[in-house]
Every structure is written in structure tokens, then in C-alpha cells.
């Protein structure tokens, strides 16, 4: 560059350089000044899915975050939420998750409890208690693969995008529908049922979860 100046450096080029510098600098300064005087206007807070999004005034673009925020569109895919009432304990999401941030433990529902366990909103009979349905939301990368495989659409991403916590433990969300004591009771019940009816039982024991998970 410096060589280029040194080599082909004529007087006319010298003055042309100065001239173009001045004009382009003036153009640039004109643009910034226009923005400076435009600063009396502020862009509104319309979301991208609203019709007037690009019709908002062309002014200051900042939104002051905690008080104002860009609205999340309906399709927004942020915090993972499980509607446990609809969960049938199929563990497909657990298998599909590329980073294994979902942990599920299930207990098979005993026959007499089927009614108590109830049905999903789609009318499907639930066959498993889900005492543990933990999502480590700190690990979750909101890829949406789990939501895509969920057969009852009970696992989905909500629009809540800001859910920071001061403690890491609080980032593990528990969705299980049984307390620990209840889970123990249900397990005992299942054991009793098994003992009572040691008939053909090809299904794997629901407790043997790690083996199945692999």
C-alpha cells in the first residue's frame, strides 16, 4: 500500500485523494448526523409476527431489556416444559435427546390403579407412573428433537426465554407425578401384584431402566 503510494503518485492523484477523502467523509458524516437527529424517534416493540413490524418508525432500535423485550413469536422454542398429565412414560424423548439432559424413571401401573392413573388428553390409557421426569434445563440446547418424537405432544418448548437462576440445582426441573413416598408405595404394590400373579411376564421390569436406556 505504502509502496503503491510511493510508486504511482502523481500530483493529480494526490489532489484527487484529498478530494475524495473530503467528499466521502462528508457523506458519512451526513449519514450519522441524520441518525443523530432521528434519535427523537424510537422503534416500537412490535414482534416480528405482527403486521406492523416493518412499519414501525425508523429510530432508536434499543429495547431496555428487563422492562421491554422483543416479543417471542408463538413458534418460539425456549424453555422445555412437560405436561406430565399427558406423559405416557414411553421414554422416547430420553433416547432422542442428543445430550441426555432428560432423565425418566417409570413404574408400571398396577391393574387396579389404571383408573387412578387416568388417560391422556388424547384419550390414551397411561400405563406407567412417572415418578422421575427431570430435565436439566441448563444443559438443554432447545433443539426440539425431544418435542418432535413425543407421541402425545406433552413435551414442548414454551416461549419463556429468560429463566436464569442463581443456583444450578434450580435449573433441574422436576416434572414427575409421584412423590418419593408415593413412588415407593407404587413399587411395592407392583411387586405384590407380580408375586400374586407370576404368570407369563415377557415384559422387562420397569425398574431396569439403565439397561433399557442404552
Amino acid at each position, binding site marked *: 500500500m505504502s509502496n503503491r503510494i510511493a510508486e504511482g503518485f502523481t500530483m493529480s492523484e494526490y489532489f484527487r485523494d484529498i478530494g475524495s477523502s473530503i467528499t466521502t467523509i462528508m457523506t*458519512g458524516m451526513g449519514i450519522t448526523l441524520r441518525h443523530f437527529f432521528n434519535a427523537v424517534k424510537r422503534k416500537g416493540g412490535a414482534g416480528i409476527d405482527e403486521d406492523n413490524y416493518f412499519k414501525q418508525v425508523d429510530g432508536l432500535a434499543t429495547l431496555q431489556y428487563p422492562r421491554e423485550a422483543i416479543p417471542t413469536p408463538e413458534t418460539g422454542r425456549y424453555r422445555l416444559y412437560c405436561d406430565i398429565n399427558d406423559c405416557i412414560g414411553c421414554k422416547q424423548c430420553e433416547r432422542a435427546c442428543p445430550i441426555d439432559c432428560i432423565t425418566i424413571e417409570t413404574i408400571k401401573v398396577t391393574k387396579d390403579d389404571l383408573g387412578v392413573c387416568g388417560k391422556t388428553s388424547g384419550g390414551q390409557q397411561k400405563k406407567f407412573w412417572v415418578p422421575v421426569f427431570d430435565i436439566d434445563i441448563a444443559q438443554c440446547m432447545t433443539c426440539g428433537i425431544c418435542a418432535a418424537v413425543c407421541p402425545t405432544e406433552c413435551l414442548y418448548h414454551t416461549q419463556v426465554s429468560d429463566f436464569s437462576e442463581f443456583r444450578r440445582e434450580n435449573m433441574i426441573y422436576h416434572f414427575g407425578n409421584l412423590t418419593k413416598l408415593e413412588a415407593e408405595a407404587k413399587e411395592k404394590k407392583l411387586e405384590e401384584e407380580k408375586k400374586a400373579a407370576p404368570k407369563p411376564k415377557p415384559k422387562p421390569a420397569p425398574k431396569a431402566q439403565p439397561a433399557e436406556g442404552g
Partner: protein
Amino acid sequence: MQELGKSEQSSLRVTPQGKGRVLIEKDLSSEEMVLNMGPQHPSTHGVLRLECKTDGEVVIEAEPYLGYLHRCFEKYAETVDYPGVVPFVDRMDYLASMNNDLAYCIAVEKLLDIEIPRRVEFIRVLVSELNRIASHLVAIGTYAIDLGAFTPFLFCFRDREHLLGLLEWASGARMLYNYILIGGVAEDLPKGFIERTREFVSYFRPKAVELQKLLTENEIFVKRTRGVGMMPADVAINYGWSGPMLRGSGVEWDLRKIDGYSVYPELDFSVCVPDGKFSDIGDSLSRHLVRAMEMEESLKIIEQCLDMMPGEEGFNPRAAIPKRIRPKAGEVYGRAENPRGELGFYIQSDGKSTSPLRCKARSSCFVNLSAMKELSMGQLIPDLVAIIGSIDIVLGEVDR
């Protein structure tokens, strides 16, 4: 230490002056100084480290050190199934996730040999071109900030915000979309997306002109970039450069034309190559110009996509997604034009497993950066910054 002593000795000149007196003169010759640029440096765009040998302001040699952002993508890809790789692909070049997804999906689909619905193809091209503009805006903005102009950077980010909004609306996420899936896309475009995109195009055109006036045409900017970091076309090819970098060297080579993947053959757009009037072909300014021109071409492509996109009646974006992705044994090299160049995936399948046996990402930034050592020789430190900026690296893709 030894070297120091040697150089000191050589820089002393001893001249006898008679009567047993000598005149000792010390040369002004200076030693090289090793200057560590990065990994925490404002202009290395992340965590690149350059070990520069400098002589005053002149960089004699700059050796790049990578790996500070190495996240074992290739190892990880071998442990998750094919669709599970997509979120990781997103995170490689995090400024152009859609384009990354497209490249990966093209590779896997080539292996699977499935046909993609036409509307899906258009959606894919549409979102990846939107993302290309977003990525180029970051490239141009950060380049401006590297050269000391702060305002264009913020203008770029202001406009990128709209693009991120559009892509968030379509895919659900602002940056790491996981939208393009193997065999389809995650969701159909939301209602009103097409109109909003049209509005964006008409909104963005004047902004691009303003940006050009503010930055590209500025004499100081031109002076800083013109003739800096020259790369002749043949050397660029030998270095495996691709994308805007290669086109900046005057080679008319664009995978969208060469490979003609997806619906690009049906679309009318030109490959941007600098004409050499405003810049010297192969310099940093040319590369910047290519990016600026490509934004305009992308707008054209977007408009055509919006016009030509088939209707949504009875359209299921996931229709062609195979239930269980287990390709036949074989290997494939699939690639697509990323905003930074050729992003290729070499995928090896053993035909048994649902996860790839080997998934190598041929990252465009990695390859483009490999010429850094040669480009930096004998440049001034400010030029070094200008060159790094013109390569437009994303360390997430360099280190993977």
C-alpha cells in the same frame, strides 16, 4: 539468551582510532519481538491466537494457533444418531446455522437417496439465504469495527436483528435453529412469513445502500483495505479457499452454481466477482465487496423464492423424513455454499448403526485461515487486523 548475546555482538561496531583508542558504535538494528495476539484480543473474532514475530510495526510472520474452541464435534457426531448431529452442526458456524444444516442434510440425503418435496427445498433456500445475509452483515460489521468504525457495526447488527426475528419466527430459535432436518424442515413457514420477508427485502435495500455509503465508499476504509492482503487466484485455489474469499481473488466459483444443489439451478442470480475498478483483485477490499454484493444477490434469490414457492396445501414439512435414519454402507462427501465458503461433510456409514461411523466437517473458515501465515508476512499490525477481518473467521467453525 544466546541469540540475544549474538545479536548484541553483531550490532557493535568497533573502529580503531589510533593511540590504543577504539570507537564503539552501536547499530540501530533491532531485535524481533514476539507479540502474542489473542486468544483474548478484540480483533481475533473469538479465540484465535496469533503468535507474531514483529519488527517494530511490521509483522515478519504470524503463526495461528487454534483449538481454543474445540468441542469435539467429529467425535461427538460418532456417538449420536444422524438427526441428533444437526444441533451440533448448528453450533459450528453459529452465525450461519441454516447453511450448516443445509450442507449436512445434503450430505446425509445424498447417502440416503431420498427426494425432498419442492416446497421444502424452497423453504430451505429461503432461510439459508436469509441467514447468509445475516452472516454477511456480521462479517461486514465486525470488519468495520476492526478498522475502527463503530457505527456501521451497530447498523449491521440492527438490521441483522430483523433477520434473526424472521428466522426465529420460522424455526423457533434465534441463532441455533435445528430447522433444516434430514429429509425436510421442522415446521412449515408461519402464516404471514412470506409477506414479512418481502417487507424485509424492501426495508433492507436502502439500508444496504446507506451502509455502502457509510463504510464501503469511505476513503479511509478503502485506503485501509485496498491492496492489503493480496492473494492471487492460483495460490488461493491451492490453499483451498472457497466462497467470498476465492471470489475476491477473481475466481468465479460458487457451489450454488457449480453443484446446483437444491433449487438453485432454477433461480436467477449471478456469482459476485469484483471487477477490479474499485479494488485490486485479491485484496481485502475485494473480499469485502464480494460480501456486500452477495447480500444484494441473496435478496434477489429471496424474492424469487417467495415468488416461486409452491403453495402450502396439504404440505407436511416432515413428510419425507425417514422414520429411522440408517443409511446404506458407504461414504459420501456432501457440500454446500456457506457464507464463508465451501462447507463439506464427509460422512461414512457402516450400514448397521444409526450414527455415522465418521463425520468429518470440512470447514471453510479452517481452510481459509490456513493461508494466514502467508498473508501476514511483512504486513503492518493494522494490516494484519484488516486481513483477519477480511477472512471473516468464525472460531466455532475453525475449531469445531
